[in-house]
Protein backbone atom coordinates (compact mmCIF):
# COMPACT_ATOMS: atom_id res chain seq x y z
CA UNK A 1 0.00 0.00 0.00
CA UNK A 2 1.12 3.55 -0.73
CA UNK A 3 0.18 6.26 1.77
CA UNK A 4 0.06 9.73 0.28
CA UNK A 5 1.61 11.70 3.13
CA UNK A 6 0.25 15.31 3.19
CA UNK A 7 3.77 16.75 3.63
CA UNK A 8 6.06 14.15 2.05
CA UNK A 9 4.02 12.75 -0.81
CA UNK A 10 3.54 9.05 -1.62
CA UNK A 11 5.32 6.74 0.85
CA UNK A 12 5.49 2.95 1.21
CA UNK A 13 3.23 1.77 4.04
CA UNK A 14 6.14 -0.31 5.35
CA UNK A 15 7.64 2.95 6.68
CA UNK A 16 4.67 3.29 9.04
CA UNK A 17 3.38 1.51 12.10
CA UNK A 18 -0.32 1.07 12.68
CA UNK A 19 -2.25 1.91 15.82
CA UNK A 20 -5.93 1.44 14.95
CA UNK A 21 -9.26 3.21 14.73
CA UNK A 22 -8.96 7.02 14.71
CA UNK A 23 -11.68 7.12 17.36
CA UNK A 24 -8.71 6.74 19.73
CA UNK A 25 -8.31 10.51 19.28
CA UNK A 26 -11.58 11.00 21.19
CA UNK A 27 -10.16 10.26 24.62
CA UNK A 28 -12.82 10.57 27.34
CA UNK A 29 -12.60 13.58 29.64
CA UNK A 30 -10.76 12.33 32.75
CA UNK A 31 -12.82 14.67 34.97
CA UNK A 32 -16.17 13.25 33.99
CA UNK A 33 -15.60 9.84 32.35
CA UNK A 34 -16.99 6.72 34.05
CA UNK A 35 -15.16 3.36 34.07
CA UNK A 36 -17.59 2.25 31.38
CA UNK A 37 -16.59 5.19 29.16
CA UNK A 38 -12.94 4.17 29.52
CA UNK A 39 -13.75 0.53 28.80
CA UNK A 40 -15.66 1.42 25.65
CA UNK A 41 -12.92 3.79 24.52
CA UNK A 42 -10.03 1.41 25.16
CA UNK A 43 -11.54 -1.93 24.19
CA UNK A 44 -14.54 -1.69 21.86
CA UNK A 45 -14.24 -1.11 18.10
CA UNK A 46 -16.65 -0.56 15.20
CA UNK A 47 -14.37 -2.75 13.04
CA UNK A 48 -16.23 -1.93 9.80
CA UNK A 49 -15.95 -3.72 6.45
CA UNK A 50 -15.56 -0.68 4.19
CA UNK A 51 -14.34 2.82 4.96
CA UNK A 52 -12.21 3.02 8.09
CA UNK A 53 -10.45 6.07 9.56
CA UNK A 54 -7.28 4.92 11.26
CA UNK A 55 -4.07 6.13 12.87
CA UNK A 56 -0.71 5.46 11.22
CA UNK A 57 2.64 6.66 12.61
CA UNK A 58 5.43 7.56 10.18
CA UNK A 59 8.08 5.84 12.24
CA UNK A 60 10.57 5.45 9.40
CA UNK A 61 10.05 9.02 8.23
CA UNK A 62 9.07 12.34 9.78
CA UNK A 63 7.45 10.72 12.87
CA UNK A 64 4.13 12.39 12.29
CA UNK A 65 0.81 10.74 13.10
CA UNK A 66 -1.65 10.48 10.21
CA UNK A 67 -5.36 9.79 9.96
CA UNK A 68 -5.75 7.56 6.90
CA UNK A 69 -9.17 6.82 5.40
CA UNK A 70 -8.92 3.36 3.86
CA UNK A 71 -11.34 0.75 2.58
CA UNK A 72 -10.78 -2.42 4.62
CA UNK A 73 -12.24 -4.57 1.84
CA UNK A 74 -10.13 -3.26 -1.07
CA UNK A 75 -7.23 -1.59 0.83
CA UNK A 76 -7.83 1.54 -1.27
CA UNK A 77 -6.75 4.75 0.48
CA UNK A 78 -8.99 7.74 -0.23
CA UNK A 79 -7.84 10.40 2.21
CA UNK A 80 -4.77 11.15 4.33
CA UNK A 81 -4.69 13.93 6.95
CA UNK A 82 -2.25 14.98 9.65
CA UNK A 83 -3.65 13.65 12.94
CA UNK A 84 -2.68 16.97 14.51
CA UNK A 85 -5.11 18.82 12.24
CA UNK A 86 -7.86 16.28 12.87
CA UNK A 87 -7.35 16.51 16.64
CA UNK A 88 -7.42 20.31 16.53
CA UNK A 89 -10.66 20.13 14.59
CA UNK A 90 -12.11 17.80 17.21
CA UNK A 91 -10.95 20.05 20.05
CA UNK A 92 -12.50 23.15 18.51
CA UNK A 93 -15.75 21.27 17.82
CA UNK A 94 -15.89 20.23 21.45
CA UNK A 95 -14.84 23.68 22.68
CA UNK A 96 -17.64 25.11 20.57
CA UNK A 97 -20.03 22.95 22.54
CA UNK A 98 -18.76 24.50 25.77
CA UNK A 99 -17.09 21.38 27.17
CA UNK A 100 -13.71 21.60 28.90
CA UNK A 101 -11.22 19.81 26.72
CA UNK A 102 -7.49 20.13 26.19
CA UNK A 103 -7.41 18.90 22.58
CA UNK A 104 -4.64 17.07 20.65
Amino acid at each position, binding site marked *: *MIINHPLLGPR*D*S*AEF*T*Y*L*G*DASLLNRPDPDTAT*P*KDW*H*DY*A*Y*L*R*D*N*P*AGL*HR*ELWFHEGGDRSWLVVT*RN*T*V*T*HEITKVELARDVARGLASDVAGMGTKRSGG
Partner: protein
Amino acid sequence: MRYSGFKVIKEALTGHKGWRPAWRDPEPQSHYDIVIIGGGGHGLATAHYLAKIFGQKRIAVLEKGWIGGGNVGRNTTIIRSNYLLDGNEPFYEFSLKLWEGLEQDLNYNAMVSQRGIMNLIHSDAQRDAYIRRGNAMILNGADAEYMDADQIRKEYPFLNFDDARFPIKGGLAQRRGGTVRHDAVAWGYARSADSHGVDILQNCEVTGFRIENGKCLGVETSRGFIGAGRVGCAVAGSSGRLMSKAGMRLPIESHVLQAFVSEGLKPILPGVITFGAGHFYVSQSDKGGLVFGGDIDGYNSYAQRGNLPVVEDVCEGGMALMPMIGRARLLRMWGGIMDMSMDGSPIIDRTHIDGLYFNGGWCYGGFKATPASGYAFAHLLARDIPHPTATAYRFDRFETGHMIDEKGMGNQPNLH
Protein backbone atom coordinates in the same frame (compact mmCIF):
# COMPACT_ATOMS: atom_id res chain seq x y z
CA MET B 1 -22.89 -44.89 6.10
CA ARG B 2 -19.86 -45.86 8.17
CA TYR B 3 -16.41 -45.53 6.61
CA SER B 4 -13.91 -48.35 7.10
CA GLY B 5 -10.98 -50.03 5.38
CA PHE B 6 -13.31 -52.82 4.32
CA LYS B 7 -15.71 -50.31 2.74
CA VAL B 8 -12.87 -48.68 0.77
CA ILE B 9 -11.78 -52.04 -0.63
CA LYS B 10 -15.35 -53.04 -1.49
CA GLU B 11 -15.95 -49.76 -3.31
CA ALA B 12 -12.63 -50.03 -5.14
CA LEU B 13 -13.70 -53.42 -6.47
CA THR B 14 -17.21 -52.30 -7.46
CA GLY B 15 -16.40 -49.10 -9.35
CA HIS B 16 -17.01 -46.65 -6.47
CA LYS B 17 -20.75 -46.62 -7.13
CA GLY B 18 -21.83 -46.99 -3.49
CA TRP B 19 -20.57 -43.68 -2.04
CA ARG B 20 -23.27 -41.22 -0.96
CA PRO B 21 -22.96 -37.47 -0.29
CA ALA B 22 -21.42 -37.01 3.16
CA TRP B 23 -24.22 -34.68 4.29
CA ARG B 24 -27.72 -33.73 3.11
CA ASP B 25 -28.68 -30.45 1.44
CA PRO B 26 -31.98 -29.74 3.24
CA GLU B 27 -34.41 -26.84 2.84
CA PRO B 28 -34.48 -24.46 5.83
CA GLN B 29 -37.27 -25.09 8.35
CA SER B 30 -39.16 -22.15 9.79
CA HIS B 31 -37.92 -22.71 13.35
CA TYR B 32 -35.10 -24.53 15.13
CA ASP B 33 -34.30 -24.98 18.81
CA ILE B 34 -30.73 -23.88 18.17
CA VAL B 35 -29.31 -21.99 15.19
CA ILE B 36 -25.54 -21.77 14.75
CA ILE B 37 -24.28 -19.01 12.45
CA GLY B 38 -21.06 -19.89 10.61
CA GLY B 39 -20.16 -23.21 8.99
CA GLY B 40 -16.47 -23.09 9.87
CA GLY B 41 -14.72 -25.53 12.16
CA HIS B 42 -16.15 -23.99 15.31
CA GLY B 43 -19.76 -23.81 14.15
CA LEU B 44 -19.77 -27.36 12.81
CA ALA B 45 -18.02 -28.74 15.91
CA THR B 46 -20.59 -26.96 18.08
CA ALA B 47 -23.41 -28.63 16.16
CA HIS B 48 -21.76 -32.05 16.40
CA TYR B 49 -21.31 -31.87 20.18
CA LEU B 50 -24.76 -30.32 20.73
CA ALA B 51 -26.39 -33.26 18.96
CA LYS B 52 -24.10 -36.09 20.00
CA ILE B 53 -22.99 -35.20 23.54
CA PHE B 54 -25.63 -32.77 24.82
CA GLY B 55 -28.63 -34.55 23.27
CA GLN B 56 -30.10 -31.43 21.64
CA LYS B 57 -32.57 -31.71 18.76
CA ARG B 58 -33.64 -29.43 15.90
CA ILE B 59 -30.33 -27.74 15.21
CA ALA B 60 -29.22 -25.85 12.08
CA VAL B 61 -25.85 -24.48 10.95
CA LEU B 62 -26.18 -21.44 8.66
CA GLU B 63 -23.25 -20.78 6.32
CA LYS B 64 -23.19 -17.85 3.91
CA GLY B 65 -20.95 -19.63 1.38
CA TRP B 66 -19.84 -23.25 1.46
CA ILE B 67 -18.68 -24.99 4.62
CA GLY B 68 -14.93 -24.95 5.02
CA GLY B 69 -14.50 -21.87 2.79
CA GLY B 70 -13.43 -19.68 5.71
CA ASN B 71 -10.42 -19.90 7.98
CA VAL B 72 -10.90 -23.58 8.74
CA GLY B 73 -9.80 -24.23 5.15
CA ARG B 74 -7.12 -21.52 5.07
CA ASN B 75 -4.96 -22.14 8.10
CA THR B 76 -1.55 -23.73 8.49
CA THR B 77 -3.09 -26.66 10.42
CA ILE B 78 -0.95 -26.57 13.57
CA ILE B 79 -2.36 -28.03 16.79
CA ARG B 80 -0.68 -27.69 20.20
CA SER B 81 -1.44 -26.85 23.81
CA ASN B 82 1.66 -24.85 24.77
CA TYR B 83 0.03 -21.86 26.47
CA LEU B 84 1.18 -20.21 29.68
CA LEU B 85 -1.81 -18.70 31.45
CA ASP B 86 -4.38 -20.44 33.63
CA GLY B 87 -7.33 -19.09 31.66
CA ASN B 88 -5.96 -20.71 28.48
CA GLU B 89 -3.88 -23.80 29.14
CA PRO B 90 -6.58 -26.15 30.53
CA PHE B 91 -8.82 -25.25 27.58
CA TYR B 92 -6.15 -25.93 24.93
CA GLU B 93 -5.09 -29.15 26.63
CA PHE B 94 -8.74 -30.26 26.64
CA SER B 95 -8.75 -29.49 22.92
CA LEU B 96 -5.62 -31.54 22.26
CA LYS B 97 -7.19 -34.49 24.10
CA LEU B 98 -10.30 -34.18 21.91
CA TRP B 99 -8.06 -34.14 18.80
CA GLU B 100 -6.49 -37.39 19.99
CA GLY B 101 -9.87 -39.15 19.89
CA LEU B 102 -11.44 -37.15 17.06
CA GLU B 103 -11.22 -39.60 14.19
CA GLN B 104 -12.89 -42.39 16.16
CA ASP B 105 -15.52 -39.97 17.45
CA LEU B 106 -16.33 -38.77 13.91
CA ASN B 107 -15.58 -41.98 11.99
CA TYR B 108 -13.60 -39.75 9.63
CA ASN B 109 -9.94 -39.62 8.68
CA ALA B 110 -8.86 -36.09 9.59
CA MET B 111 -5.18 -37.05 9.32
CA VAL B 112 -4.43 -36.01 12.90
CA SER B 113 -0.65 -36.27 13.00
CA GLN B 114 1.12 -35.82 16.35
CA ARG B 115 4.45 -35.15 14.73
CA GLY B 116 5.48 -32.71 17.45
CA ILE B 117 6.10 -28.98 17.59
CA MET B 118 9.40 -27.33 18.52
CA ASN B 119 9.65 -23.68 19.60
CA LEU B 120 13.26 -22.61 19.12
CA ILE B 121 15.15 -20.58 21.70
CA HIS B 122 17.81 -18.00 20.79
CA SER B 123 18.74 -16.22 24.02
CA ASP B 124 19.08 -16.87 27.73
CA ALA B 125 16.05 -14.76 28.58
CA GLN B 126 14.00 -16.68 26.04
CA ARG B 127 15.18 -19.95 27.58
CA ASP B 128 13.91 -18.82 30.99
CA ALA B 129 10.57 -17.81 29.51
CA TYR B 130 10.12 -21.08 27.65
CA ILE B 131 11.09 -23.21 30.63
CA ARG B 132 8.52 -21.32 32.68
CA ARG B 133 5.95 -21.98 29.99
CA GLY B 134 6.90 -25.66 29.88
CA ASN B 135 6.38 -25.91 33.62
CA ALA B 136 2.97 -24.25 33.35
CA MET B 137 2.04 -26.78 30.67
CA ILE B 138 3.14 -29.74 32.79
CA LEU B 139 1.22 -28.38 35.79
CA ASN B 140 -1.89 -28.43 33.60
CA GLY B 141 -1.37 -32.02 32.51
CA ALA B 142 0.17 -31.26 29.10
CA ASP B 143 3.54 -32.55 27.91
CA ALA B 144 6.59 -30.32 27.46
CA GLU B 145 10.24 -31.09 26.99
CA TYR B 146 13.24 -28.77 27.09
CA MET B 147 15.82 -29.66 24.45
CA ASP B 148 19.36 -28.33 24.16
CA ALA B 149 20.92 -27.43 20.82
CA ASP B 150 22.73 -30.76 20.40
CA GLN B 151 19.51 -32.72 20.85
CA ILE B 152 17.76 -30.53 18.29
CA ARG B 153 20.67 -30.93 15.87
CA LYS B 154 19.95 -34.67 15.70
CA GLU B 155 16.36 -34.07 14.59
CA TYR B 156 16.81 -30.94 12.46
CA PRO B 157 20.45 -30.92 11.28
CA PHE B 158 19.77 -28.36 8.54
CA LEU B 159 18.77 -25.46 10.82
CA ASN B 160 21.02 -22.41 11.01
CA PHE B 161 22.41 -23.22 14.49
CA ASP B 162 25.43 -20.96 14.46
CA ASP B 163 23.92 -17.79 13.08
CA ALA B 164 25.94 -14.85 14.41
CA ARG B 165 22.89 -12.83 15.42
CA PHE B 166 20.35 -15.49 16.44
CA PRO B 167 22.11 -18.78 17.25
CA ILE B 168 19.81 -21.66 18.21
CA LYS B 169 20.40 -22.36 21.90
CA GLY B 170 17.64 -24.86 22.55
CA GLY B 171 13.95 -25.44 22.16
CA LEU B 172 10.71 -26.28 23.91
CA ALA B 173 9.15 -29.35 22.38
CA GLN B 174 5.60 -30.58 22.67
CA ARG B 175 5.58 -34.07 21.21
CA ARG B 176 1.78 -34.39 21.25
CA GLY B 177 1.39 -31.29 19.08
CA GLY B 178 1.34 -31.56 15.30
CA THR B 179 -0.88 -30.99 12.30
CA VAL B 180 -4.36 -32.00 11.09
CA ARG B 181 -5.84 -31.96 7.60
CA HIS B 182 -7.90 -28.77 7.97
CA ASP B 183 -10.64 -29.35 5.35
CA ALA B 184 -11.23 -32.83 6.71
CA VAL B 185 -12.02 -31.30 10.10
CA ALA B 186 -14.85 -29.26 8.59
CA TRP B 187 -16.10 -32.20 6.53
CA GLY B 188 -15.81 -34.72 9.35
CA TYR B 189 -17.73 -32.56 11.81
CA ALA B 190 -20.32 -31.72 9.14
CA ARG B 191 -20.88 -35.35 8.25
CA SER B 192 -21.21 -36.37 11.87
CA ALA B 193 -23.53 -33.47 12.77
CA ASP B 194 -25.69 -34.26 9.74
CA SER B 195 -25.91 -37.92 10.73
CA HIS B 196 -27.25 -36.78 14.12
CA GLY B 197 -29.99 -34.78 12.40
CA VAL B 198 -28.39 -31.32 12.16
CA ASP B 199 -29.46 -29.31 9.09
CA ILE B 200 -26.43 -27.77 7.38
CA LEU B 201 -27.72 -24.86 5.29
CA GLN B 202 -25.15 -23.52 2.83
CA ASN B 203 -25.56 -20.34 0.76
CA CYS B 204 -27.57 -19.02 3.68
CA GLU B 205 -26.21 -15.67 4.84
CA VAL B 206 -27.48 -14.14 8.05
CA THR B 207 -28.39 -10.52 7.27
CA GLY B 208 -29.96 -9.50 10.58
CA PHE B 209 -31.37 -10.56 13.93
CA ARG B 210 -34.99 -10.33 15.04
CA ILE B 211 -34.75 -8.95 18.55
CA GLU B 212 -37.84 -8.02 20.59
CA ASN B 213 -37.92 -6.88 24.21
CA GLY B 214 -34.27 -7.82 24.67
CA LYS B 215 -34.78 -11.33 23.35
CA CYS B 216 -33.46 -12.82 20.12
CA LEU B 217 -36.29 -14.61 18.30
CA GLY B 218 -34.39 -15.70 15.20
CA VAL B 219 -32.39 -14.52 12.22
CA GLU B 220 -33.09 -12.88 8.88
CA THR B 221 -31.25 -14.74 6.14
CA SER B 222 -30.81 -14.72 2.37
CA ARG B 223 -33.18 -17.72 2.44
CA GLY B 224 -35.84 -16.06 4.59
CA PHE B 225 -36.54 -15.66 8.30
CA ILE B 226 -35.53 -18.58 10.51
CA GLY B 227 -36.89 -18.65 14.06
CA ALA B 228 -34.70 -19.96 16.87
CA GLY B 229 -34.86 -20.69 20.58
CA ARG B 230 -31.18 -19.86 20.91
CA VAL B 231 -28.72 -18.41 18.39
CA GLY B 232 -24.97 -19.07 18.56
CA CYS B 233 -22.62 -16.90 16.46
CA ALA B 234 -19.30 -18.46 15.36
CA VAL B 235 -18.20 -16.47 12.32
CA ALA B 236 -14.52 -15.82 13.21
CA GLY B 237 -13.20 -12.94 11.05
CA SER B 238 -16.74 -11.69 10.32
CA SER B 239 -17.59 -11.29 14.02
CA GLY B 240 -17.61 -7.49 14.02
CA ARG B 241 -19.72 -7.31 10.89
CA LEU B 242 -22.28 -9.84 12.13
CA MET B 243 -22.63 -8.60 15.71
CA SER B 244 -23.07 -4.99 14.55
CA LYS B 245 -26.41 -6.22 13.15
CA ALA B 246 -27.39 -6.90 16.76
CA GLY B 247 -26.19 -3.43 17.72
CA MET B 248 -23.05 -4.73 19.44
CA ARG B 249 -19.51 -3.38 19.34
CA LEU B 250 -16.87 -5.99 20.16
CA PRO B 251 -13.39 -5.99 21.69
CA ILE B 252 -12.21 -7.33 18.33
CA GLU B 253 -10.54 -6.05 15.14
CA SER B 254 -10.40 -8.01 11.89
CA HIS B 255 -6.90 -8.47 10.41
CA VAL B 256 -5.48 -10.46 7.51
CA LEU B 257 -3.03 -13.35 8.00
CA GLN B 258 -1.21 -14.91 5.06
CA ALA B 259 -0.01 -18.48 4.50
CA PHE B 260 2.39 -19.98 1.96
CA VAL B 261 3.03 -23.38 0.39
CA SER B 262 6.10 -24.47 -1.58
CA GLU B 263 6.28 -27.02 -4.38
CA GLY B 264 6.12 -30.65 -3.24
CA LEU B 265 9.42 -31.98 -1.87
CA LYS B 266 10.69 -35.32 -0.55
CA PRO B 267 10.14 -35.67 3.23
CA ILE B 268 12.58 -33.30 4.90
CA LEU B 269 10.85 -31.76 7.90
CA PRO B 270 9.62 -34.27 10.49
CA GLY B 271 7.65 -31.90 12.74
CA VAL B 272 6.55 -28.29 13.16
CA ILE B 273 9.23 -25.72 13.97
CA THR B 274 8.86 -22.09 15.00
CA PHE B 275 11.57 -19.42 14.84
CA GLY B 276 11.97 -17.63 18.17
CA ALA B 277 13.75 -14.54 16.88
CA GLY B 278 11.40 -13.55 14.07
CA HIS B 279 7.92 -14.49 13.08
CA PHE B 280 8.17 -17.68 11.03
CA TYR B 281 6.87 -21.21 11.43
CA VAL B 282 6.92 -24.17 9.07
CA SER B 283 5.84 -27.78 8.66
CA GLN B 284 5.66 -30.16 5.71
CA SER B 285 2.33 -31.42 4.43
CA ASP B 286 1.78 -35.05 3.51
CA LYS B 287 1.79 -34.01 -0.15
CA GLY B 288 5.32 -32.67 0.40
CA GLY B 289 4.74 -28.91 0.32
CA LEU B 290 6.41 -26.79 2.96
CA VAL B 291 3.56 -24.95 4.69
CA PHE B 292 4.68 -21.77 6.37
CA GLY B 293 3.60 -18.40 7.66
CA GLY B 294 4.44 -15.51 9.93
CA ASP B 295 2.90 -12.33 11.22
CA ILE B 296 -0.46 -10.77 10.45
CA ASP B 297 -0.25 -7.81 8.06
CA GLY B 298 -1.04 -5.49 10.96
CA TYR B 299 -3.91 -3.26 9.82
CA ASN B 300 -7.68 -3.81 9.81
CA SER B 301 -8.66 -5.84 6.77
CA TYR B 302 -11.54 -7.88 5.39
CA ALA B 303 -9.76 -8.46 2.06
CA GLN B 304 -8.70 -12.13 2.40
CA ARG B 305 -5.43 -11.17 0.71
CA GLY B 306 -2.33 -9.55 2.13
CA ASN B 307 0.43 -7.25 0.97
CA LEU B 308 4.08 -7.71 -0.01
CA PRO B 309 5.96 -6.38 3.05
CA VAL B 310 4.78 -9.36 5.11
CA VAL B 311 5.65 -11.77 2.30
CA GLU B 312 9.18 -10.39 2.38
CA ASP B 313 9.33 -10.59 6.18
CA VAL B 314 8.16 -14.21 6.23
CA CYS B 315 10.68 -15.22 3.54
CA GLU B 316 13.48 -13.46 5.44
CA GLY B 317 12.49 -15.39 8.57
CA GLY B 318 12.61 -18.64 6.61
CA MET B 319 16.03 -17.84 5.16
CA ALA B 320 17.39 -16.92 8.59
CA LEU B 321 16.18 -20.14 10.18
CA MET B 322 16.71 -22.74 7.44
CA PRO B 323 18.67 -21.28 4.51
CA MET B 324 17.93 -24.31 2.32
CA ILE B 325 14.32 -23.12 2.03
CA GLY B 326 15.64 -20.58 -0.51
CA ARG B 327 15.99 -23.43 -3.02
CA ALA B 328 12.28 -24.28 -2.88
CA ARG B 329 9.82 -22.51 -5.14
CA LEU B 330 6.75 -20.87 -3.69
CA LEU B 331 3.67 -22.47 -5.18
CA ARG B 332 0.82 -20.44 -3.74
CA MET B 333 -0.15 -18.04 -1.00
CA TRP B 334 -3.41 -16.71 0.35
CA GLY B 335 -4.95 -14.80 3.25
CA GLY B 336 -7.68 -15.27 5.82
CA ILE B 337 -9.44 -12.81 8.11
CA MET B 338 -8.57 -13.10 11.78
CA ASP B 339 -10.82 -12.02 14.63
CA MET B 340 -8.04 -10.37 16.67
CA SER B 341 -9.21 -9.69 20.22
CA MET B 342 -7.93 -7.01 22.58
CA ASP B 343 -5.94 -9.43 24.74
CA GLY B 344 -5.23 -12.12 22.17
CA SER B 345 -7.63 -14.61 23.80
CA PRO B 346 -11.07 -15.76 22.72
CA ILE B 347 -14.62 -15.13 23.97
CA ILE B 348 -17.24 -17.85 24.50
CA ASP B 349 -20.08 -16.14 26.29
CA ARG B 350 -23.69 -14.97 26.43
CA THR B 351 -24.44 -11.53 25.08
CA HIS B 352 -26.64 -8.97 26.83
CA ILE B 353 -29.43 -10.08 24.47
CA ASP B 354 -31.44 -13.07 25.72
CA GLY B 355 -30.93 -16.16 23.60
CA LEU B 356 -27.95 -14.71 21.69
CA TYR B 357 -24.55 -16.31 22.30
CA PHE B 358 -21.13 -15.46 20.92
CA ASN B 359 -17.98 -17.42 20.09
CA GLY B 360 -15.04 -15.49 18.58
CA GLY B 361 -11.80 -13.60 19.06
CA TRP B 362 -9.69 -16.63 18.03
CA CYS B 363 -6.93 -14.56 16.49
CA TYR B 364 -4.53 -16.69 14.39
CA GLY B 365 -4.79 -19.68 16.73
CA GLY B 366 -8.34 -20.95 16.55
CA PHE B 367 -7.78 -24.06 14.47
CA LYS B 368 -6.20 -26.01 17.32
CA ALA B 369 -9.09 -24.84 19.49
CA THR B 370 -11.79 -26.22 17.17
CA PRO B 371 -12.83 -29.31 19.18
CA ALA B 372 -12.77 -27.61 22.60
CA SER B 373 -14.41 -24.46 21.25
CA GLY B 374 -17.24 -26.53 19.77
CA TYR B 375 -17.57 -28.55 22.96
CA ALA B 376 -17.53 -25.52 25.26
CA PHE B 377 -19.93 -23.53 23.07
CA ALA B 378 -22.30 -26.51 22.91
CA HIS B 379 -22.10 -26.75 26.71
CA LEU B 380 -23.01 -23.07 27.05
CA LEU B 381 -25.85 -23.27 24.51
CA ALA B 382 -27.33 -26.45 25.96
CA ARG B 383 -26.96 -25.75 29.69
CA ASP B 384 -26.55 -21.97 29.82
CA ILE B 385 -23.43 -22.33 31.97
CA PRO B 386 -19.86 -22.14 30.69
CA HIS B 387 -17.79 -25.28 30.32
CA PRO B 388 -15.26 -25.58 33.21
CA THR B 389 -12.29 -25.02 30.87
CA ALA B 390 -13.82 -21.90 29.30
CA THR B 391 -14.95 -19.89 32.31
CA ALA B 392 -12.38 -17.14 31.72
CA TYR B 393 -13.53 -16.39 28.15
CA ARG B 394 -16.00 -13.71 29.18
CA PHE B 395 -16.97 -10.44 27.49
CA ASP B 396 -16.69 -8.52 30.74
CA ARG B 397 -13.08 -9.43 31.45
CA PHE B 398 -12.00 -6.14 29.88
CA GLU B 399 -14.16 -4.29 32.39
CA THR B 400 -13.17 -6.34 35.42
CA GLY B 401 -9.46 -6.44 34.59
CA HIS B 402 -9.26 -10.21 34.07
CA MET B 403 -7.57 -10.06 30.68
CA ILE B 404 -5.82 -13.19 29.41
CA ASP B 405 -2.87 -11.56 27.69
CA GLU B 406 -0.31 -14.31 26.92
CA LYS B 407 2.12 -11.83 25.41
CA GLY B 408 1.48 -8.88 27.71
CA MET B 409 0.86 -6.57 24.76
CA GLY B 410 -2.21 -4.71 26.00
CA ASN B 411 -5.20 -3.61 23.99
CA GLN B 412 -3.53 -3.48 20.60
CA PRO B 413 -4.79 -6.40 18.55
CA ASN B 414 -2.13 -6.18 15.82
CA LEU B 415 0.59 -6.93 18.40
CA HIS B 416 -0.87 -10.18 19.75
